[in-house]
């Protein structure tokens, strides 16, 4: 049996690691990837730009993993999946035949779609090549404009700031991290970034990127403001790479639709990681869970399904952990005002200590939590949300002493 894996990031590695010990002697794995370097962590690219990590530190697995006579690597981009003939058409015109296929094709950055978006000095931050370009340009740049208020944009902004350039963050939304954060968390992030010397403009839309053959010179906003800039980083989110399955029977919405065994609507074809659209942990809706731990599990489950192991994905749960200017943040599940209407909400903000905690309860069960400044006992709350464990004394979830009491009482 020939098992082909498209992609070489974490879902791919996780699938490969599961396949190798379980597959038959005569089975083969072919990894088809457009990545020049295999198994590097995209999450760490900001740390590489800032100089905190070297290139060698970005790898979460050694290339030795593919040094197995049953594994081969094809370094080419996939043009299309031909599910009827069970083969991949590659950019070069070559084809690769498969018996089973795992698609871990990831996602690509959303374009900025304004004049000047192709000027030298305009970057996205997704691949190692992007990070190398940013790192190189940032050495010479005086002023960098970062577009977007999501995690990638925030991390890019702090990374470039560390390399010495002036950084302006231009955010279309009226608050930072508007896709996952509530008002208070947004405000705290704003404070942390500002303290780092990053200039933030909320509710500002970009009209044009201006420059010449040498590259970017300025960014013009809709309100007429013109900002000098010799580099621009666009962090406007990502979209799953679903084009390769167009015209096949593989169903897509925002991502490739998968079941609990990570199988797509075409038998023998699986998807995992950022490209997959899977069920959430409450079994109520499907979504894109573009999170590291989910990619690990999904890759493992896809491989397990091929090996005949009966293991099901327990469902995606939005969760994020990040540190800005030394301040730790954890957001689990739903905490945004518009997502939690009709829920019981308990929160506590200690202005002096700069510590914020929040718990969101629906029908007696926790569905969201936020921690900022102090993340103690976040792990317990994460599992409470996942397991739908009834909340008895909600007030205890928003103080350190209360959380400690809950945790302690469970151990006794």
């Amino acid at each position, binding site marked *: 049996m020939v098992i082909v894996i498209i992609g070489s990031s974490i879902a791919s590695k996780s699938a490969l690691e599961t396949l190798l010990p379980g597959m038959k002697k005569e089975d083969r794995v072919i990894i088809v990837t457009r990545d020049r370097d295999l198994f590097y962590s995209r*999450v760490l690219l900001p740390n590489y730009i800032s100089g905190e990590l070297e290139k060698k530190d970005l790898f979460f697995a050694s290339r030795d993993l593919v040094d197995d006579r049953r594994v081969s690597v094809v370094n080419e981009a996939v043009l299309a999946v031909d599910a009827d003939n069970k083969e991949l058409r590659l950019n070069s015109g070559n084809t690769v035949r498969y018996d089973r296929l795992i698609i871990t094709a990831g996602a690509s950055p959303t374009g900025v779609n304004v004049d000047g978006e192709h000027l030298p000095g305009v970057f996205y931050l997704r691949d190692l090549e992007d990070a190398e370009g940013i790192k190189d340009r940032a050495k010479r740049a005086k002023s960098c404009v970062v577009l977007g208020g999501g995690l990638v944009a925030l991390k890019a902004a702090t990374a470039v700031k560390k390399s010495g350039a002036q950084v302006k963050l231009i955010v279309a939304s009226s608050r930072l991290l508007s896709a996952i954060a509530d008002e208070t968390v947004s405000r705290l992030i704003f404070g942390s970034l500002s303290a780092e010397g990053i200039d933030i403009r909320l509710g500002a839309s970009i009209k044009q990127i201006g420059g010449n053959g040498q590259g970017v010179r300025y960014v013009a906003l809709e309100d007429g403001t013109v900002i000098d800039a010799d580099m621009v980083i666009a962090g406007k989110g990502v979209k799953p790479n679903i084009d390769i399955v167009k015209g096949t029977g593989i169903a897509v919405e925002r991502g490739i639709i998968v079941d609990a065994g990570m199988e797509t609507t075409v038998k023998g074809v699986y998807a995992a990681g950022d490209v997959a659209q899977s069920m959430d942990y409450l079994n109520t809706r499907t979504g894109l869970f573009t999170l590291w731990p989910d990619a*690990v599990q999904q890759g493992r489950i896809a491989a397990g399904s091929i090996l005949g192991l009966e293991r099901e994905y327990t469902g995606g749960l939005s969760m994020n952990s990040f540190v800005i200017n030394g301040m730790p943040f954890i957001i689990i599940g739903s905490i945004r005002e518009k997502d939690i209407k009709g829920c019981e909400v308990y929160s506590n903000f200690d202005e002096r200590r700069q510590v914020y905690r929040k718990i969101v309860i629906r029908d007696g069960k926790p569905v969201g939590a936020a921690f900022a400044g102090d*993340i103690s006992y976040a792990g317990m709350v994460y599992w409470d949300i996942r397991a739908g464990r009834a909340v008895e004394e909600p007030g205890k979830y928003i103080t350190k002493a209360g959380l400690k009491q809950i945790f302690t009482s469970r151990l006794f």
Partner: protein
Amino acid sequence: MSGSVTVNIQKDKCTGCGLCRLACSFDKNGVFNPNASRIWILDGDESGFYPNICRNCEEAPCLDACPAGALVRRREDGYILLNSEKCVGCNMCVMVCPFCAIGRMGDRNFKCDTCNHLEKCARICPHGAIQFQTSAHSRANKRRKLAGLLTAKTGGKEKW
């Protein structure tokens, strides 16, 4: 091999004296500072005390959560180690640890590493409240490792 080390905690034997925390911080940071310890003592008020430490989960959520390749199982006994050289301090492991047994100091996360098999907390505990137990399989592995150390392979330089 995975998860063959089990951490056995007998809370009824814990007096809350804190020697384990001192031994831990001294081994790891060279100071007697409970805040640097990888073991915590929970005060159950009238119910007594509970020494809390990594349980080396069989299916460990932290292993799946680390985007830096910093968390791995030690080959010889399946114990989960956090490589501080690779750690970027993102707290993803903290967010998913059901035992709240991963901490953070400076810009790195940290957890128990069994003091490289020396298990200082367990050794110093006067009442035997903490025990690291290894399965027969992992003891066999340990013996193989010892045998390897005594042979030419390592030049006999490493200490057991």
